[in-house]
């Protein structure tokens, strides 16, 4: 539920896929399509001449290499920077507070009442850790459409009823809302996973 720009992810994957598909298809067609193979060689040859001329015409003073090589390195560097920006843009959107409300003071100025996410984390995990039908729980908060959303993830043991767990987690969240004064928007996820499978069974047999 973080702020990852999923459309950007998909566009990026699509563009990379398209480039690979184009290059791959162009290479794969070489042995079967003589016209295409001769075009390829022709273009390779003429490009070679152009490049050699360009390199010779643009030699950096005092060295024996061309400005174009420096430009090529700069382009590669730019691509690397863009890739790093894409990686860095993933994630984020966490919220440090689950509740914020302005209060007006007697002198007319106003302040904010904040409830920190860690308060909810402490309160909820403290209650959930005692439950025998859960093997783990995580609490976090995100900002979705400028609104803090509390995220509670629980991993029940094998065979536990998700309905029951959701209802009982709902009671805890109601209690939290009573303490805080207002119910934060909440998302509850119930996970399966290795921990649930490996956690020992509590059923009386």
């Amino acid at each position, binding site marked *: 539920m973080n702020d990852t720009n999923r459309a950007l992810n998909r566009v990026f*994957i699509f563009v990379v896929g*398209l480039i690979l598909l184009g290059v791959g298809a162009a290479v*794969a067609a070489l042995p*079967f399509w003589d016209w295409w193979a001769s075009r390829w060689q022709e273009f390779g040859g003429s490009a070679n001449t152009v490049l050699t001329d360009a390199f010779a015409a643009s030699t950096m003073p005092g*060295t024996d290499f061309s400005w174009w090589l420096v430009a090529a390195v700069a382009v590669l560097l730019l691509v*690397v920077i863009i*890739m790093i920006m894409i990686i860095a843009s993933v994630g984020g959107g966490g919220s440090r507070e689950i509740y914020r409300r302005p209060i007006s003071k007697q002198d007319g100025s106003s302040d904010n009442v904040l409830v920190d996410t860690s308060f909810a984390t402490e309160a909820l995990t403290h209650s959930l850790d005692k439950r025998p039908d859960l093997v783990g729980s995580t609490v976090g908060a995100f900002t979705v459409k400028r609104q803090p959303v509390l995220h509670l993830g629980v991993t029940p043991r094998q065979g536990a009823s*998700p309905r029951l767990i959701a209802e009982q987690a709902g009671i805890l969240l109601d209690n939290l809302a009573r303490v805080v004064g207002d119910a934060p928007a909440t998302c*509850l996820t*119930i996970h399966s996973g290795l921990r649930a499978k490996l956690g020992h069974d509590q059923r009386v047999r």
Partner: protein
Amino acid sequence: MSAPYARIVRRETHSPRTATTILLAVLIILACAYAGTELILHMLGQPALLVTPADAWTWVATLPTLEPLAAISAGGTLVAAIGLLLILHSIRSGRLARHEMVLGDRAVIVDNGVLASAIARRVETVARVPQGQAAVSVSHRRAIVEVTPTSGIPVDEESVRRAVEEEIASYDVRPALRHTVRIKQIGAIGS
């Protein structure tokens, strides 16, 4: 309070494609770093790590004349196939194995595995078989329950069916689950 639940549920039940994005970005960074290193080594007049830029260029330009042609074609096909898979990966919905559970005004997302193991537990209790003799798989719209009776002790199919129905109805998940119950003809021994 109007919570953006539609958005939350959508984001929690679909893959963000983040892993692929990061993998591709890292591979591109590595490729650029390598190419840049070769270029700089060339500019400094140092020996190349693997291949000089000029040799690499010549190799690409004369690709159609190189042997074996089959290998070149196969390589191209492989690259094209990877590209096609990436395009499909970027277009497909990336739905995760999860269901939305309707519970008051909260967004509740349940992994299919949790639903399956809860149904299995209920079926084992109703059918009076030991743990592990009810196999349940839950997909997007269907739950398939397969009960292995203990040899010599018949299982009442009707009651199992009713239990599964009740259990699924109590979850009230979106999209709704249909179910299939199968009782195996061959029982398990000694459990």
